[in-house]
């Protein structure tokens, strides 16, 4: 469970001739003070760590589903690397949540033994990707938003969150770059790739507003200088998204979700291709700009699409069928 053992085997090998490559691994939380800052509610801090941790955990799982299905071997490994980066962030955040709530659970209990309604991730990370264009559009949205968030988290009053933010910034910078390169390559490619990339960019838009709606827990922790107010990230997101789509010769304002009839090659999971409305994403999210205030019934409150239930059935199956099992 502890990171110490895993890193112990790989750190400080400067005098060890066994490894020609790949030594000098570092524990990202080495030397970080893990006491909860004064005046911060432990329950709220744990809930916030769950939000950011669940975002990473579920996005990582969706990326893992592309392994053995990616269009090229090299991209398969790239996606697996990104999934592993996010899984690492999820582990640090769920470990912090477990430590702060102090209720006898650990990162595994939080990942494997909670039901869908107890997950706090945004709905963007749940969606199945109908094809590779949908994947890179969704990854670009996710990485652009998360990079802006982690960058501000580096100044959090919670030293553990600040360290996790600093580690994550370097990782997610690469994720955003990877996704942006593919969006540009496909958008500014052939007529067919352009149309499919445009459809993918349009269809991810209804999931974007939720990312920037602060939850009451977030706002209370913003007041304590621990959390980031997601509504302050919108302008950076819009600038990056607009810049990439312009370079990709794509329109930034999308058509109505589910309106396109693009083919769905490379469908990774069974529910891919289902129009967005049928996956349970509220249709009210299109049209009138959403209120900037807290929204009842968001993923942050445990209101999820059916897609999350499918993910958890897969993600939790081994842990639930073999309680307490270890390698």
């Amino acid at each position, binding site marked *: 469970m502890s990171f110490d053992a895993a890193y112990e085997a790989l750190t400080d090998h400067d005098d060890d001739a066994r490894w020609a490559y*790949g030594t000098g*691994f570092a524990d990202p939380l080495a030397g970080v003070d893990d006491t909860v800052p004064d005046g911060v509610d432990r329950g709220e801090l744990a809930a916030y760590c769950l939000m950011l941790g669940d975002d990473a955990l579920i996005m990582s799982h969706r990326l893992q589903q592309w392994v053995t299905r990616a269009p090229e071997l090299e991209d398969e490994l790239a996606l697996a690397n990104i999934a592993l980066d996010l899984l690492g962030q999820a582990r640090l955040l769920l470990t912090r949540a477990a430590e702060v709530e102090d209720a006898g659970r650990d990162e595994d209990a939080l990942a494997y033994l909670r039901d869908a309604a107890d997950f706090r991730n945004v709905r963007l990370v749940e969606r199945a990707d109908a094809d590779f264009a949908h994947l890179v559009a969704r990854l670009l949205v996710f990485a652009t938003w998360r990079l802006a968030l982690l960058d501000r988290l580096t100044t959090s009053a919670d030293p553990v969150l600040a360290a996790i933010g600093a580690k994550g910034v370097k990782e997610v910078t*690469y994720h955003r770059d990877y996704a942006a390169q593919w969006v540009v390559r496909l958008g500014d490619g052939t007529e067919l790739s352009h149309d499919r990339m445009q459809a993918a960019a349009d269809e991810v838009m209804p999931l974007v507003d939720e990312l920037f709606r602060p939850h009451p827990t977030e706002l209370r922790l913003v007041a304590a200088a621990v959390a980031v107010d997601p509504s302050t990230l919108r302008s950076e997101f819009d600038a990056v998204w607009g810049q990439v789509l312009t370079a990709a010769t794509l329109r930034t304002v999308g058509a109505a979700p589910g309106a396109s009839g693009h083919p769905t090659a490379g469908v990774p999971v069974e529910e891919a291709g289902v129009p967005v409305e049928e996956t349970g994403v509220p249709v009210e999210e299109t049209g009138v700009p959403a209120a900037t205030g807290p929204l009842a019934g968001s993923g942050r409150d445990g209101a999820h699409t059916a897609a999350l239930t499918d993910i958890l059935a897969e993600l939790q199956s081994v842990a639930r069928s073999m309680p307490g099992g270890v390698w």
Partner: protein
Amino acid sequence: MSEDIKHEWPLFEVFVRAKRGLNHVHVGSLRAADHEMALHHARDLYTRRNEGVSIWVVRSDDVAASSPDEKEAFFSPSGDKVYRHPTYYSIPDSVPHI
């Protein structure tokens, strides 16, 4: 237009400089659509275990290689030129990597 689409990406050779290494070392090859993508792929394939601090990629068809047929003429003549090694000098212990 479809006949313009190349269905197989070109091959690139990858060179990585390790943290404690002195020069870039050939580590393998990969396929990519262009140099920028090749650098991304090289980072993802060949440096994921903390192996490197610098990457070079070169199109494989840009590499000129010596031919096995020329082996005698290329490499044998140096076989008896022992005086080309600096063995007549004493080298201080503090000078590495000669």
